């Protein structure tokens, strides 16, 4: 069997980036969650918040580590599998990635040590400052990467001269047409992911009858955040849909599952299709009558544009885009339903005793990751056959590397990443099984910024190093 290097390069990048995105999504969400929890601890001085902080800090740190390592691989893959893309787009993409390292990574690297190991060594306010800096670092990182990726979706601010891109406006490269909507969409997705993880773990403890106080507090926080965030996410997603319809109509045409230039009137909203790309039709389709017109055109008899509006050689594969979009959309609906149900149960005072709802929350624990992955599949497969929309095709961006070489590195990635994910799951599940330990607030909230910057001694809880030295002398 003859292997097509462009397909293997795409499979390799799809695998590594899909694996990678799970971890930044968790760490962006958990970093901000930890900052909120530490702020609550400093404000209320209740030990429960320190307990929650320490518990989720362990899981955050593992996710963060794997996220950084697997992210570095992606930069190398530009050279390994997509060197022609790197050569052409380097002037625009390169500085954005460099800026991510200079701002986000440096900020995170500078404060991560204090965040992870400094709880007993520095004052609580300095520690809180470090947590905030790490949280801001993750947001900055997301911002640069989303800027680079959004530029590939909706390129702006460049001119093509002799087959090379020249940046004519950095402002337009950075704030390209889709970045303003895709960034909040991704960040909210990360926050939702963390919220459902936190609520799911709390629900699990309640079902097992363990760590009741911890479980109630985390479940209450997780469901409250998730309810507000999912409403915002649906709203942001709707605006992003309109933006992408304007800039990348072929993606949204594929996402809705219609082929004809104008759909029937009234248009159904399709939930299930068996697309036949070669014959440009659906072999089978199942939808809700009228709903397509109502949702997509805001009228009872509006027609929806189909994929035949895009020339055949510029069409994305409909099946992948359609189902990825449906998974994301249906996940959002289920999340919203769970959020509303949590409000109702809270109102009735049975949020912690409705076992059926607790089981739903447990099953919803990875829902944010599933929805985020599906969203990225919509973004990336819907952009095909372009790697830089309207400028460079994916087939023209591939490195002149033989397919077997790409396969061998893909197999190596799969093996190494299998070790990563196994280790992550083993340690995370072990932390969850053991539960939050009985923690004491070694670094007590003093309320004084001056004291906050004085170091603490690990084995002398609550005592300042200076006091210790004075006693010894």
């Amino acid at each position, binding site marked *: 069997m003859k292997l097509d290097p462009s397909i293997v390069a795409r499979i390799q990048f799809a695998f590594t980036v899909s694996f990678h995105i799970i971890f930044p999504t968790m760490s962006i969400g958990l970093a901000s969650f930890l900052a909120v929890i530490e702020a609550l601890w400093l404000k209320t001085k209740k030990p429960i918040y320190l307990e929650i902080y320490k518990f989720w800090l362990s899981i955050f740190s593992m996710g963060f580590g794997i996220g950084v390592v697997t992210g570095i691989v992606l930069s190398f893959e530009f050279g390994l599998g997509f060197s022609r893309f790197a050569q052409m787009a380097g002037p625009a993409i390169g500085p954005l990635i460099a800026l991510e390292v200079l701002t986000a990574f440096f900020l995170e690297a500078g404060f991560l040590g204090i965040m992870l190991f400094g709880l007993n060594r520095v004052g609580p306010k300095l520690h809180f400052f470090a947590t905030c800096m790490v949280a801001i670092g993750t947001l900055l990182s997301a911002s640069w990467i989303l800027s680079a990726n959004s530029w590939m979706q909706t390129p702006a601010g460049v001119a093509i001269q002799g087959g090379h891109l020249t940046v004519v406006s950095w402002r337009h490269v950075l704030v390209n047409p889709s970045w303003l909507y895709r960034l909040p969409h991704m960040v909210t997705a990360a926050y939702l992911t963390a919220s459902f993880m936190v609520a799911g773990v709390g629900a699990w403890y309640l079902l097992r009858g363990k760590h009741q106080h911890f479980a109630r507090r985390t479940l209450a926080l997780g469901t409250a955040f998730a309810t507000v965030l999912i*409403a915002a996410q649906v*709203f942001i997603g*709707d605006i992003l849909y309109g933006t992408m319809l304007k800039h990348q109509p072929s993606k949204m045409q594929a996402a809705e599952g219609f082929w004809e230039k104008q759909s029937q009137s009234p248009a159904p909203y399709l939930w299930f299709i068996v697309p036949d790309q070669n014959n440009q039709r659906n072999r089978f389709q199942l939808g809700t009558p009228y709903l397509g017109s109502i949702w997509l055109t805001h009228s009872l008899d509006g027609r929806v544009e189909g994929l035949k509006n895009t020339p055949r050689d510029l069409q994305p594969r409909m099946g992948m885009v359609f189902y990825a979009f449906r998974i994301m959309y249906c996940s959002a609906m289920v999340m919203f339903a769970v959020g509303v*149900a949590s409000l109702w149960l809270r*109102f009735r*005072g049975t949020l*912690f005793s409705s076992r059926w709802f607790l089981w739903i929350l447990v099953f919803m624990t990875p829902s944010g990751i599933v929805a985020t992955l599906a969203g990225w599949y919509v973004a990336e497969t819907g952009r095909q056959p372009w790697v830089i929309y309207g400028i460079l095709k994916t087939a023209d961006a591939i490195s002149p590397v033989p397919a077997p070489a790409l396969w061998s590195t893909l197999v190596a990635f799969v093996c190494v990443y299998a070790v990563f994910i196994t280790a992550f799951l083993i340690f995370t599940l072990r932390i969850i099984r053991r539960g939050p330990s009985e923690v004491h607030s070694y670094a007590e909230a003093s309320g004084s910024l001056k004291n906050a910057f004085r170091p603490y001694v690990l084995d002398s809880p609550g005592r300042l190093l200076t006091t210790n030295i004075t006693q010894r002398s």
Partner: protein
Amino acid sequence: MRNRNHLHRFHSMSAALLGVFFFFAIIGVFGLRWAITALAGFVLGAVVVCVAFPTEDVES
């Protein structure tokens, strides 16, 4: 007791489905201005419920 549990579950699920229908209908059908109003109303309602009904200390 069993019937009461089933009724309670039915109420919760109905509330959830109604909420989804209401919100998605407003965002999908009536356009941006109503969507912003619906979002603000929903978030405000959610915050009020979360603050006014702190169930954490209620014995189940």
